[in-house]
């Protein structure tokens, strides 16, 4: 199968310390890849260089045949890569519904010309998006929260919303930074159920997560990173039992 995302020998340094060391990785279409590893392994940096929030020192990132390096992050998002952030980012003083609506792409109403000259078209699309947003919230089982301010939700629900925003953006590749960290088991269950259903709908996931049980349950493949390098790669059980992996924690 053709890879959705192809990362070719990427390097990234922060004043002296190496965050990504000649790092290469292929992400197959419709897969769920987990990335684990100790602190400072370069996991979040990897997400940041893929999504254009940090410039690469060298290397190439190809997504669906497009070279992403040097592209501004909003264009990368438009190309179909959505992400969540470790310290959850959402517009907390807007409603859940508005956050989802914000995340849709190609909105006519985002151009003032349309708002004033073609209000009908904007209204129609807005109505459609509203329906889609409500469907999405229903699919995730949080439709009753649509009108609530995001800041009033629990942390787990907020994580759910940030996943919903990624889905609303229409992206095919979703990078989730700690989707289940810091939330209660029943919420973890819900989020994992949602993630598991999506590859068959054409979505591809890369997940950074410390909750190994969660990674084991949902990922097809696990990458173990340490000091900017790929230490192990394979199916979850084999990575877990790879001697090099436990060695990384011991050294």
């Amino acid at each position, binding site marked *: 199968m053709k890879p959705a995302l192809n990362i070719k020998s990427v390097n990234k340094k922060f004043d002296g310390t190496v965050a990504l060391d000649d790092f290469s990785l292929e992400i197959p279409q419709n897969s769920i890849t987990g990335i684990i590893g100790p602190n400072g392994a370069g996991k979040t940096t990897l997400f*940041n260089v893929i999504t254009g*929030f*940090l410039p690469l020192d060298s290397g190439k990132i190809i997504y669906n045949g497009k070279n992403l390096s040097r592209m501004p992050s909003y264009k990368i998002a438009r190309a179909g890569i959505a992400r969540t*952030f470790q310290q959850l980012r959402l517009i907390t003083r807007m409603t859940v519904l508005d956050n989802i609506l914000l995340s849709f792409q190609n909105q006519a109403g985002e151009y003032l010309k349309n708002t004033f000259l073609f209000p009908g078209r904007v209204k129609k699309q807005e109505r459609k998006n509203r329906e889609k947003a409500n469907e999405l919230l229903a699919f995730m089982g949080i439709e009753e929260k649509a009108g609530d301010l995001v800041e009033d939700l629990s942390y787990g629900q907020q994580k759910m919303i940030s996943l919903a925003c990624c889905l609303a953006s229409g992206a095919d590749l979703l990078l989730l930074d700690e989707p289940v960290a810091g939330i209660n088991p029943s919420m973890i269950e819900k989020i994992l159920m949602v993630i598991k259903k999506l590859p068959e709908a054409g979505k591809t996931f890369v997940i950074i997560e410390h909750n190994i049980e969660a990674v084991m349950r949902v990922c097809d493949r696990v990458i173990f990173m340490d000091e900017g390098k790929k230490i192990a790669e394979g199916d979850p059980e084999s990575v877990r039992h790879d001697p090099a992996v436990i060695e990384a924690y011991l050294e």
Partner: protein
Amino acid sequence: MLAQVLLNGLIAGSTYALIGISFGLIYMPTRFFHFAHGVVYAAGAYGTLAAISWLNLPLSIAVLVGVGTSTVIGLTIECTVYRALRRRSASSLVFLLTSLGLYIVLQNSISLFFGDYIQSIRIGAVEEGIDILGARITPAQILIVSMSLALTVAVTILLKRTKMGRAIRAVANDAELADISGINRDKVFFRTFAIGSALAGVAGILVAFDSDFCPTMGINALMMGVVAVIIGGVGSIHGIALGALLIGMAQQFGVWKIGSQWQNAIAFVILLIFLLFRPQGFLGKKVKKVTV
């Protein structure tokens, strides 16, 4: 003519350095734009004026009254308003807006007490100037230049050699690590405001010795100080002095070539250039980028 332009540039630069250093000292650990500092500066001149004309005190004591007034006002602002904002962990924008409000209240209070008209506590007549290489400088201006030099050195020593100075630099360098080391941030701020406000008072008085003044004297001087701090680089006293000199010189060359009315515009065009292309100033550390 060139000699006079250079000398005027030096004098202007020195007055900016005086307020710039006092503002920069406070900005170092607090990291917000304390606009009300402009009034603290004016309070030095008006305190001295009040002591002379209302209380008939001799000049030397009047100067102390002036510096005292500045210090008290600066500290009162810190202990009442700013401390309350810090407890609320207000953003730097909130500090800036509050400070603008304070500035307006205090400047207009001065107007209410002293009137909006021009006042004077000049020392020595203008004719008493001294010739240096065909350029004229008055005794008050000599005082300004030498004091700004002395204060540059003194504040540098304060920051490098004294315990309090080190604490100020520690908070400026890494406030959380200063907390971890057991430094009391409120105490550091209190002392910084005390010294910074007293220095502003001194600056205000020195400038008033040289020229007439009115209640709005503070905002313009402060803005020149802010420009000096930004283009010099936050945290570097030498940088501030250098920045002040640069604006002073640029303005005086402007006066010479295109006319005196464009002084402000010149200073702020320089500021814009620095903000856009080198926001850390020429001696400052690189500004930390927003983290994702």
